[in-house]
């Protein structure tokens, strides 16, 4: 169908007003800004969205880190009055909520967004606009959640906000409502993101990219997204029940009406336990990519890695009640869940052993990315071991609500997830921005983080076993918690500085790179294995010039190395030689769009309406519906765009018969 190439001739319009017809639609055409703020606001490019996820997540890391330091300051010495009890409650709740929902989850989403299409050899995700929407609605929810600080105080019931403490009776302020509505909104983003990324992995793989040729990171992210897909609705229901209770006088958690507040715990942890795995699995995936590259060996036991990830995904659904051992769920349930919890340690152990086996006998290159990966393996294993001790229900009864728990989950989430993400940041930074981060600062970054991390959370094991309870605003000098608390506080400040030093590193590296005349880092700076390294750095907007045809696991690596006649592995080409030149022409990319942002903005409006006045919901809903329809009726492309191929004009032929 070539008719599309014809310019509308002037004579064709009765009024002869062809030129005015070219752009008559104002805001209703699709935006076309290659650079600038508007481009970032309207982009549907998975790479830009990934970078925005990462930036937002780093920002929230800062935002959630300040409360953490405040907590440590308050606990540094006995009987301190730095924070009031009320402020303390809000601060630890918001610290947990921000770190889990607005740092670790979006950081996983950042890597997933940036890397999934590249690793499976696709141009973009399956639904680029939904992808942009996922990000914006996450950000809208996150910001809305945090505006509670200025509009009446944050939530104060712990990140899980147990019922009935979260009810209007015990918590009349708006903090819980903000927590509730903010996370509901962010959850929409997670859900749409999950649908999008799963579809991408299942359906957008390059020719030849069969299941067992997918990189481990892709696999782990796929499992993660399935967990999100099925876990988010459960949280949504729990939060909606709470919303109805608080705003519309429902009775779901109202003990006076005979309800059982334990329902909240069940629903929350049915979501909450898969949540734990969906926070750690992306980090596992990153480490499984980094270690083989810098150990100069293929990953050991690839199928075991894959299937243990899938096993974790399934088993993660059967262990939620181990968060509730002391809630009175009864001995039978406790036994069943304790046994299930012990079993879930097996696939995780398989992963750790596989990483060790990959490292074993490898020619290790101990750069920052590798160090962070090894850091994950060690720190996470420590956290995993304390986790196994929770599986023993009788021991857990003693440990519940002590600092031992705090130590455990920080070891798995900070020492696990965040170390993995830092490894990924150092590893993929040159792919995204075209220059490496400074190794020297990087190593400082790593070692100071390890020291700070262990100083902060190591002592908490001891404190917990000594009996120091969580969520207590202060303690008495006679209780014997003084020394270790001081150590932990000192450690936390080291950790704070160390965590931030990656930003300093980025700044220094960028300046050095600019001063050196922006040298080309090359497509494959690490001599790596997966497909994203077979294209130029920074990644061209169209990703692949031609869709790669995949014949092996680590296909790119096999283009560089092959066995010679004697069965010895030899390098036959450099990454630069086999990489795609990045000059794709005539590639038809999805046009940017305003609607994802507009649609996302309607949600906080409705959210504020639910909290303050239902009248606000009316403009919110109108905006929502308008955005939805504007979205679906939006033309595929800007009119002046070069269509390349008349890919959506077969319709006219059919239309003529109708």
């Amino acid at each position, binding site marked *: 169908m070539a*008719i*599309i190439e014809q*310019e*509308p*001739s002037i*004579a*064709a*319009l*009765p009024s002869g007003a062809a030129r005015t*017809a070219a752009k008559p*639609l104002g805001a209703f055409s699709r935006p076309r800004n290659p650079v600038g703020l508007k481009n970032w606001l309207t982009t549907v490019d998975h790479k830009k969205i990934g970078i925005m996820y990462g930036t937002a997540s780093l920002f929230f890391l800062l935002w959630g880190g300040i409360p953490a330091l405040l907590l440590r300051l308050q606990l540094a010495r006995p009987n301190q009055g730095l924070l009031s009890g009320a402020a303390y409650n809000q601060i630890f709740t918001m610290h947990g909520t921000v770190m889990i929902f607005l740092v670790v989850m979006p950081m996983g989403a950042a890597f997933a967004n940036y890397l999934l299409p590249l690793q499976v050899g696709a141009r973009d995700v*399956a*639904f680029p606009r*939904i992808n942009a929407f996922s990000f914006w609605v996450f950000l809208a929810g996150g910001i809305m959640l945090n505006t509670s600080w200025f509009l009446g105080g944050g939530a104060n019931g712990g990140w899980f906000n147990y019922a009935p403490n979260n009810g209007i009776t015990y918590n009349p302020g708006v903090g819980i409502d903000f927590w509730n509505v903010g996370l509901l909104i962010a959850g929409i983003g997670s*859900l749409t993101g*999950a*649908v*999008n990324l*799963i*579809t991408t992995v*299942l*359906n*957008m*793989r390059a020719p030849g990219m069969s299941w067992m040729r997918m990189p481990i990171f892709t696999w782990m992210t796929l499992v993660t997204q399935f967990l999100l*897909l*099925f*876990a*988010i*609705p*459960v949280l*949504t*229901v*729990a939060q909606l*029940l709470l919303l*109805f209770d608080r705003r*519309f006088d*429902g*009775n*779901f958690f*109202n003990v006076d*009406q*005979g309800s059982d507040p334990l*329902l909240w715990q069940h*629903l929350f942890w*049915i979501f909450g336990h898969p949540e734990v795995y969906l926070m750690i699995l992306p980090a596992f995936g990153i480490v499984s990519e980094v270690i083989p590259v810098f150990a100069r060996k293929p990953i050991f036991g690839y199928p075991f890695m894959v299937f243990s990830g899938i096993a974790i995904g399934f088993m993660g659904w059967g262990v939620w009640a181990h968060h509730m051992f002391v809630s009175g769920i009864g001995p039978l349930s406790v036994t069943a869940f304790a046994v299930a919890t012990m079993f879930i340690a097996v696939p995780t152990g398989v992963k750790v052993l596989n990483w060790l086996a990959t490292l074993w006998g490898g020619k290790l290159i101990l750069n920052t990315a590798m160090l962070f990966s090894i850091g994950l393996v060690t720190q996470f294993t420590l956290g995993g071991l304390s986790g196994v001790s929770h599986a023993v229900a009788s021991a857990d009864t003693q440990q519940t609500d002590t600092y031992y728990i705090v130590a455990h989950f920080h070891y798995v989430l900070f020492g696990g997830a965040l170390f993995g993400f830092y490894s990924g940041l150092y590893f993929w930074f040159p792919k995204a921005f075209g220059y490496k981060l400074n190794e020297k600062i990087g190593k400082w970054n790593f070692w100071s983080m390890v020291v700070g991390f262990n100083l902060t959370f190591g002592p908490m094991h001891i404190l917990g076993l000594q009996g120091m309870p969580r969520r207590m605003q202060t303690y008495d000098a006679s209780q014997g918690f003084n020394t270790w608390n001081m150590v932990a506080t000192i450690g936390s400040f080291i950790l704070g500085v160390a965590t931030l030093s990656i930003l300093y590193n980025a700044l220094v590296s960028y300046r050095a790179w600019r001063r050196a005349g922006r040298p080309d880092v090359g497509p494959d700076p690490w001599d790596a294995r997966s497909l994203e390294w077979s294209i130029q750095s920074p990644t061209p907007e169209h990703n692949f010039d031609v869709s790669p045809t995949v014949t092996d696991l680590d296909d790119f690596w096999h283009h560089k190395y092959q066995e010679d006649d004697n069965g010895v592995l030899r390098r036959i080409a450099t990454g630069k030689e086999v990489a795609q030149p990045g000059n794709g022409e005539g590639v038809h990319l999805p046009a940017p769009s305003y609607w994802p942002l507009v649609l996302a903005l309607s949600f906080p409006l409705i959210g504020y309406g639910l909290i303050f006045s239902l009248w606000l919901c009316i403009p919110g809903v109108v905006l929502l519906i308008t955005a939805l*329809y504007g979205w*679906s009726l939006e*033309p*595929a492309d800007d*009119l002046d765009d070069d269509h390349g191929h008349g*890919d*959506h*004009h077969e*319709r*006219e032929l*059919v*239309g*003529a*018969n*109708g």
Partner: protein
Amino acid sequence: MAETTATEDLDHEGAAAAEFADQLNDTPSDFVHHEEHYTSLGLSNMKLAMWLFLGSEVLLFGALISTYLLSKTRFITELVAGNPYVIEGISNGENGALVNEMIAEASVEPLFDIPFTSLSSFILLMSSLSMVLAHKSVTEGNYKNLRIWLSTTMLLGATFMAGQVYEFTTFYREGLTYDGSLLGTAFYTLTGFHGAHVTGGLIMLGSLIYLSFKNKMQMDRAETVELVGLYWHFVDIVWVLIFTIVYLIP
């Protein structure tokens, strides 16, 4: 009808103008994905995504239904346990019948109008049939029937919702309020959620009807009809569950 002008005038002088108009009119997007792209599984992205979304909805309604069941049990247990009348009856040794009677009276079942709800179920099933016939029509290029069946689906769905409004009104008048009891909260939340989903489906159907009257819903967009159909049948399935679990099983 703008579209007909645009397509019929192709051989006239205004061909390019019509083409231009048609471009403006053209609404392909992920919403109406009608291209046959290469995909790894050979399946359409939209349809796969729809099924994934429905999978996540299963968990949502599962949570709501189990919440309702738990609330109902709790409500009755609490009611019996806290009622001196019943305790007295138990101590007198005549507990069985009395307790059962108490439960039957206090529960939501006496309010149920099973004949009417059965009718609602039939109406929703009917709408499923007309939905699937609408899809059939569009794959065969029979746009007249497409419009008729889509409209029928929407009308039947709206009738179902009218039944819901009627039911809620009568229940409310007879004393089952949203905030009055745990049972009321759970019942209205569950059925209300289903109702909200039906309403969403109705609006989608309305859009399809509008587009089909504008000649924008044609054979190549059959998948859009199918996707809305998938959603609609899913809502029907949920009602099948609710009808049996909530209404029929005491």
